[in-house]
């Protein structure tokens, strides 16, 4: 009995070794391209990157991309230090953040959202800035009902918060009524509070809340691409400067930058930049 069990175990182990050997050898892939790609960075890019990986794997089954959604800062660092093949950021690089080859591959619009019952349909960037700094506290001051404004934002350090505060020019002056740790949570909070205002990636917004126009410009793919919608941020992919990317990594980057990826990227709610 025992011998039988040991024999079985040995067989299993042998099979396992064989299988892994196959995998790393890349003999299973159709086009010979193989290897691993490590991606690291902004949580905001997770949805679009996940769809891109899925589509890429259909053509190149031998390549295994993995994505760690850690944050823009960590993504930039990992590309700089070469700990990841591709780093991802959802904000522009700051001074001192060099040592990377950076390409903008998509643009994400931060939609300003209110409760569907709110009569306010348009806000200027100045009004939004005044609301988020606490200078305007009542909806009647921006053409709405006489009701207090519940200002909902993201936590310090998040890419969306950084982009929003930066574009609005209100860093260090924000007065929130509620801070939440994800775009989904902000949308839920706005959907359940008729006095609320919030912001989230255009891709995440459904019909539970209403998007207001900013300076009269709606948040759509067209206004993001032509740059007229003011609250937008780039999705940037980075590789270490001076290091030749592996064949698989280069193929993945080419795929992201190709027209074949346009539909995948737009299905994920952001706009491709070719």
């Amino acid at each position, binding site marked *: 009995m025992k011998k039988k069990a040991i024999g079985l175990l040995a067989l299993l182990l042998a099979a396992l070794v064989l299988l892994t050997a196959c995998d790393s050898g890349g003999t299973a892939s159709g086009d010979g391209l193989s290897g691993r790609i490590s991606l690291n960075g902004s949580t905001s890019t997770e949805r679009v990157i996940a769809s891109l990986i899925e589509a890429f794997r259909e053509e190149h089954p031998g390549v295994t991309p993995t994505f760690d959604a850690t944050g823009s800062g*960590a993504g930039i660092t990992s590309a700089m230090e070469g700990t990841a093949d591709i780093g991802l950021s959802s904000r522009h690089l700051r001074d001192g953040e060099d040592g990377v080859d950076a390409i903008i591959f998509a643009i994400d619009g931060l939609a300003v959202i209110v409760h569907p019952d709110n009569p306010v349909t348009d806000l200027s960037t100045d009004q939004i800035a005044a609301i988020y700094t606490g200078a305007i506290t009542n909806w009647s001051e921006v053409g709405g009902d006489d009701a*207090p*404004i519940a200002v909902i934002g993201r936590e310090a*350090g998040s890419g969306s918060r950084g982009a929003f505060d930066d574009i609005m020019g209100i860093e*260090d002056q924000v007065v*929130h009524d509620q*801070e939440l*740790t994800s775009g989904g949570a902000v949308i839920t909070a706005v959907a359940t509070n008729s006095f609320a205002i919030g912001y989230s990636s255009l891709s995440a917004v459904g019909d539970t809340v209403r998007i207001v126009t900013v300076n009269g410009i709606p948040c759509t793919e067209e206004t993001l691409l032509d740059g007229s919608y003011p609250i937008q941020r780039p999705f940037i992919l980075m590789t270490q400067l001076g290091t030749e990317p592996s064949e698989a990594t280069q193929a993945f980057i080419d795929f992201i930058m190709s027209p074949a990826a346009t539909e995948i990227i737009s299905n994920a709610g952001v706009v491709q930049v070719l």
Partner: protein
Amino acid sequence: MRPYNAFLGVHMKTKNIVEKTMQAVFFALGMVTIIAVATISAFLIINGIPAIREIGLWAFLSGQEWRSTGANPAFGILPFILTSIYSTIGAILIGVPIGLMTAIFLAKVANPRLAAVVNTAVELLAGIPSVVYGFVGMIVLVPLVQRTFALASGAILLSAILVLSVMILPGIISVSRTALAAVPREYEEASFALGATKTETIFKVSVPAAKSGIAAGVVLGIGRAIGEVMAVLMVMGNVPNMPNLFEPARSLTTAIAMELSYATGFQRQTLLSIGLVLFCFIMMINLILNFALKRGYKA
């Protein structure tokens, strides 16, 4: 006689080996807990001290402003400490009377069949994950609080207190109920014999006799309330203000959870320092719990 003795000898030897082995296994498993606690303590102390030293212990504990990512950052955690204390006290003030009354009802008043039904409900309440408490709080309680008090936002300290007071109920009920059930019947019979009514007996005899156990239940509730993250994160608004019942606030636990995912460098170190402060709080609560339990055994 010899074969029998020899057999016995072998038998005893095997037995000894089994005993020794099992002892080693138990020892090793016991050590796992100790190693875990020691590792966590060492990690928190080693990682938590540097930021506190740089900011200064008093400035860290008594600073009223928290701007971790600002151009001119400030790292004062007094708002978080006070929020944790206020929300815990609030939860205890609401949760203990309800929990204690339920425990009395279950242990002394209810007929067994009804007690079984209520008891199942209490156990179910204990099994609900905190994220579900938070979600229901966010969808149902927060809008309700907002409308009731005509506020801009219902995600305030009060909402967190209400959610926490429900969350600590199961612990308080089950510990208090056990303590009340353990009160010797003779005490109560003596009380009845002296002409006391059932209510008088419960409040003047049973509850005082079980007070150490009830205290242990309360301390357990405090531990749960101060350590809760997820549910509080979803209903408290999470703005680092000095706490006020009708304004959003941020507690020690949520202060860590809010920023940890994006924090780097010094900001991350300060979050670990908050962890160390929280750890000290929990240690104090544990010491009080041990004290309460010991007194319980003596009585």
